[in-house]
């Protein structure tokens, strides 16, 4: 037996597909809409959520027997807020450029329903190792969708990926632009993120009929 038992491995793989926080549970949609206009921002957000959810789940799990149930939501909020502030400060001190990309999104991590949802639904009832795996799994599931949406929005909206001009130069009219292609500005607006997420949900459910509710 390796490091992960079959049950443990499921904690990581389930949220990636069949129990994805965005496409199946429909959580964390707000931040997915707000930040996916660029691939880089999507990746940075995914990594930050990975850190906050991984550590936060462990902290809540360790405290699960001593947290008073009356104020458990407040305790969860304090833990996630503290972690986010620490991430923000460390980034500002050691990776200033990255922190500027992230600055607007830090607040969105605190309001991310996935994090509070996992604290409440999993970490309060399970041990630290399992909670850690659950946190990592859900953050990865969230990140995968973010990166897919960010990929299409940046590619079709700006013609770039991670800032590199992959479709040619729109001003010099090279590459695809030479044959009349135009960037789709609508892709950069939030409603388009919802439509892209909708398409992912559609594709996913048409491939796996078990996910379709009556």
């Amino acid at each position, binding site marked *: 037996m390796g490091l992960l038992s079959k049950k443990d491995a499921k904690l990581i793989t389930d949220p990636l597909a069949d129990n994805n926080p965005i496409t199946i549970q429909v959580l964390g949609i707000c931040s997915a809409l707000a930040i996916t*206009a660029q691939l880089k921002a999507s990746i940075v957000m995914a990594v930050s959520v990975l850190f906050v959810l991984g550590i936060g789940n462990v902290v809540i799990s360790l405290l699960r027997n001593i947290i008073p149930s009356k104020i458990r939501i407040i305790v969860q909020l304090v833990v996630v807020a503290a972690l986010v*502030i620490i991430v923000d400060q460390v980034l*500002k001190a050691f990776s*200033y450029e990255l922190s500027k990309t992230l600055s607007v999104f830090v607040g969105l991590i605190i309001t991310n329903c996935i994090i509070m949802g996992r604290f409440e639904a999993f970490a309060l009832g399970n041990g630290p190792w399992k909670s850690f795996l659950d946190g990592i799994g859900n953050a990865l599931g969230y990140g995968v969708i973010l990166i897919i949406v960010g990929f299409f929005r940046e590619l079709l909206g700006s013609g770039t990926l991670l800032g590199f001009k992959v479709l040619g130069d729109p001003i010099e009219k090279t590459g695809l632009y030479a044959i009349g292609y135009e960037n789709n500005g609508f892709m950069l607006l939030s409603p388009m993120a919802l439509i892209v997420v909708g398409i992912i949900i559609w594709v996913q459910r048409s491939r796996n009929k078990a996910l379709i509710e009556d």
Partner: protein
Amino acid sequence: MENRTDKNSYTILFAIAMVVIVGALLAFTASSLSPKISENMRIEKQQNILYAMGVNNNDAGSAVFVDTKDASELFAKYITKQEVITNGSVSEDNQAYLIDLKKDKAAAGGDAAKRNLPLFIGEKDGKTFYIVPIYGKGLWDAIWGYVSMDENMVIQGAYFDHKGETPGLGANIKERFFMDDFIGEHLLDANGNFKGVEVAKGNADPTNEDKTDNEVDAIAGATITGNGVAAMIKSDLKLYKPYFDNLKNN
């Protein structure tokens, strides 16, 4: 059966302990990292000022600052003088670049005479640059920047930045295609009165060949951010007009 963690006294004690621990942890993190953070912000300001006077590592299409590690050295090399203008009188201050425009603007409360206006004088290739910081509001949040001018108030370079403009739309004010449009634009009209630079929609001169029309081409889908840029140029650079008049008369 009642759990011991359900008691009110326990809840209150837990809350107090939590606040103390988390507060101490955050205070420790913030205070131990703050020197490093303010150092980063200081270097960024120096990079911005250098960028506006054309000292940068730009490649074909993108705006790139000088390296962080060289910033202080280059700043000392190119910026020969830092001044602060307060109510018409000019004084030298080698910390002028640390003036926080937002706070200063708020403290003056709309009274331009009370403001401390920083001005940086740079020398490069035998040419003198007058670099001025500007601050205003875009669609979602603050926008700011640095504009360098020659003694006739003709723009020699500009750098704009923003806090939360829409990526791909308003956020494009910090892209080179927009910032470079400002180079060569006149801030004064033909009669020598201050006019500023409009960020114009439906511009008859989109390639920006006419540098004396006080107009640059707007970014599609970023009307309010563009208007914000024009407004901060107008309101903040206007305050320096007397300084430049003085410069010419002497």
